[in-house]
């Protein structure tokens, strides 16, 4: 890959302090491109089957993509890959901030970290190479103070006390952005690694600079003109979702016992904008600036994302926006994933309500939740249980039927009983209950076009299409919010109560065979900006079909990794509450998963047990 790559990665052994510069296998780089793709390839190759995530031989991989460090919009992100201590599956978590670009400009496409340091350290990467440095003075510090104490010009990826204490859903933080899901921060903590920082000014080679420059200009304008990326997200941040998900009856409420509360509107993005927003915030080179900077009490701080509002607010019966801002701020500083934290607190509250757990947690009790968040990060008292996550708590205290997780990963803030396709997506996602592997809820419930959320028609096809697209985009690496702009702007002008809308969505709901055909065709056309950016940066012509195949390859390798680690089709499931209890008056049960699952496996080219067939593995050129 002549353009877009620095053609090397760092291999750091914290046990021996050995640091090597290595080159990627050229063929792997062509097949997996970068970010999420190369991350799973390296994890698969560099670890023995059955390795515990906290074993010193476990690897932690930070990877960027060919677009990272260029000015391509939404491209300054890194992916961190390891085995999840929360789920036992692969974990790949994605993050904006300033680290990705600095790592690339220091001259590396990735850094692979293995071993365990005998004492707290941080890793400093520059154009001259890498150095392991003492971090004893940083151990115990929050992510904010840690970042402040490190060199100002460097890009940083750091953990807080939660990572140090191996909380199974500990995050990694870069500026105000968070690699939240799957407990990658806990693996970093287990290695006694407090931070990875990078700095450099190397030029990223671009194969077709003139074409790239024009494309960059055009796509930035396109994104800024699009209703979603140019208006809704900049104006309201991701909290724009609150009013819609409440109206659709899918915002988690009291551990998914309901789909909205009459007070949900108190947590809306509009309320945040009107009452506490100071300014928008954003990642490097991103024109959208969906982040929020708000003022509460006498200080300015980060405003919460939708997921934080959904899980640490609505789901806990906390309807004071400033309190939710504070909870989000605490989690980010302690290094906790807000989604898993909110779910686990919700589950513990229901256990308490049912008399299965002794605690002071109760719906809306902000003081009790504040203390519990702090205790979780430090594994104190009840926090010792909360730090293990929902699944492990349900194994200890009971309540498995209302323990809201898939494969051990707690669910995001979209109740799948009001978006069946999203339910399938949760069930089959390789890293567990996650919404950003395909975001089918956007096509069913939240976006401008709603394909009957309570129908299973064409949902397996849509999930596969979306998953492939997302896996490819996060291998480039770009922010998956880009994909929201693939829905034409005209769709936002349609009247959702009109006959035309009804006919269109009805037709689209039966488009499964067409989507299947699209998935099979290796379409050489360059329609979207993903293939165009990849082509101009790398110099290798890439079409829509290549992008789809890249995503398919990544998902299949992830699946093969999970199978190797003992995760099977039995784990492609949803919590009992979500399949058996209805929250809609016209439905008797929840998500009808089984029929969608069978179709999903078949269309994917997997057998009835969800195992990729040899034919599929060969077609995708996956080395096992």
């Amino acid at each position, binding site marked *: 890959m002549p353009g877009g790559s620095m053609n090397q990665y760092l291999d750091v052994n914290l046990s021996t302090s050995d640091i090597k510069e290595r080159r990627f296998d050229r063929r792997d780089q062509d097949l997996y491109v970068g970010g999420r793709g190369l991350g799973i390839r390296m994890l698969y190759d560099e670890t023995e089957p059955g390795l515990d995530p906290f074993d010193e031989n476990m690897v932690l991989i930070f990877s960027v993509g060919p677009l990272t460090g260029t000015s391509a919009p939404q491209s300054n992100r890194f992916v961190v890959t390891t085995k999840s201590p929360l789920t036992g599956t692969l974990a790949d978590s994605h993050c904006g901030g300033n680290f990705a670009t600095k790592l690339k400009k220091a001259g590396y496409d990735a850094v692979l970290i293995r071993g365990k340091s005998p004492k707290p350290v941080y890793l400093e990467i520059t154009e001259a190479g890498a150095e392991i440095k003492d971090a004893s003075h940083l151990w115990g510090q929050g992510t904010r103070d840690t970042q402040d104490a490190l060199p100002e010009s460097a890009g940083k990826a750091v953990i807080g006390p939660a990572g140090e204490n191996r909380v199974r859903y500990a995050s990694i933080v870069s500026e105000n952005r968070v690699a939240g899901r799957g407990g990658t921060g806990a693996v970093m903590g287990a290695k006694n690694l407090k931070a990875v920082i990078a700095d450099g000014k190397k030029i990223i080679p671009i194969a077709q600079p003139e074409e790239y420059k024009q494309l960059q200009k055009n796509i930035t304008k396109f994104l800024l003109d699009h209703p979603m990326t140019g208006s809704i997200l900049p104006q309201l941040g991701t909290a*724009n979702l609150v009013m819609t998900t409440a*109206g659709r009856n899918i915002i988690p409420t009291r551990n998914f016992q309901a789909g909205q509360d009459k007070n949900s*509107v108190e947590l809306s993005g509009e309320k945040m904008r009107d009452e506490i927003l100071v300014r928008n915030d954003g990642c490097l080179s991103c024109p959208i600036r969906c982040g929020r900077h708000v003022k509460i009490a006498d200080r300015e701080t980060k405003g919460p994302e939708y997921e934080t509002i959904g899980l640490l607010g609505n789901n806990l019966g906390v309807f004071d926006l400033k309190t939710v801002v504070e909870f989000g701020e605490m989690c980010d500083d302690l290094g906790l994933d807000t989604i898993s934290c909110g779910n686990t607190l919700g589950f513990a509250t229901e256990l308490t309500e049912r008399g299965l757990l002794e605690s002071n947690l109760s719906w809306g009790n902000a003081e009790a939740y504040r203390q519990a968040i702090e205790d979780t990060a430090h594994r104190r008292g009840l926090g010792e249980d909360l730090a293990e996550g929902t699944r492990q708590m349900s194994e200890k205290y009971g309540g498995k039927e209302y323990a809201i997780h898939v494969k051990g990963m707690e669910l995001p803030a979209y109740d799948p009983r009001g978006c069946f396709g999203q339910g399938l997506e949760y069930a089959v996602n390789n890293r567990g209950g996650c919404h950003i592997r395909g975001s089918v809820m956007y096509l069913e419930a939240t976006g401008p076009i709603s394909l009957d959320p309570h129908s299973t028609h064409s949902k397996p096809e849509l999930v596969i299409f979306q998953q492939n697209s997302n896996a490819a985009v996060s291998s480039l690496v770009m922010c998956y919010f880009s994909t*929201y702009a693939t829905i034409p702007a005209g769709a936002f002008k349609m009247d959702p109560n009109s006959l035309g809308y009804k006919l269109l969505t009805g037709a689209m709901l039966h488009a499964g065979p067409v989507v299947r055909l699209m998935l099979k065709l290796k379409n050489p056309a360059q329609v979207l900006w993903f293939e165009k950016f990849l082509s101009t940066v790398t110099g290798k012509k890439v079409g829509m079909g290549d992008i789809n195949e890249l995503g398919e390859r990544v998902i299949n390798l992830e699946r093969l990794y999970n199978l190797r680690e003992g995760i099977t089709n039995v784990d492609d499931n949803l919590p009992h509450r979500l399949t058996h209890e209805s929250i809609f008056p016209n439905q008797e049960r929840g998500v009808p998963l089984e029929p969608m699952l069978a179709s999903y496996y078949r269309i994917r080219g997997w057998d009835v047990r969800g195992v990729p067939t040899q034919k599929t593995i060969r077609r995708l050129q996956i080395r096992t």
Partner: protein
Amino acid sequence: MPAFVPHVALAKLLGTSRLETNAATVRVLMDEIKRRVPAEDWKRVRRAAILINGVAMHRLEGLDTPLAPEDTVWMVVPSGGG
């Protein structure tokens, strides 16, 4: 009594984020709302999905969907992110 929750732009015009109604159907409710909003503004704010307890109106009986006392009708606009 059924409740009505407007999207934010409509809520500003109505001066409330939630109201209770005696309307027997969605049609009667919408006529009631339309009367309370200036005509030129109504054109701007009416393009929003109408949901009854989370289910789109057109998947029920459309504007003729009857309203029960415990029902909540929402008007929502497209959203995204995550």
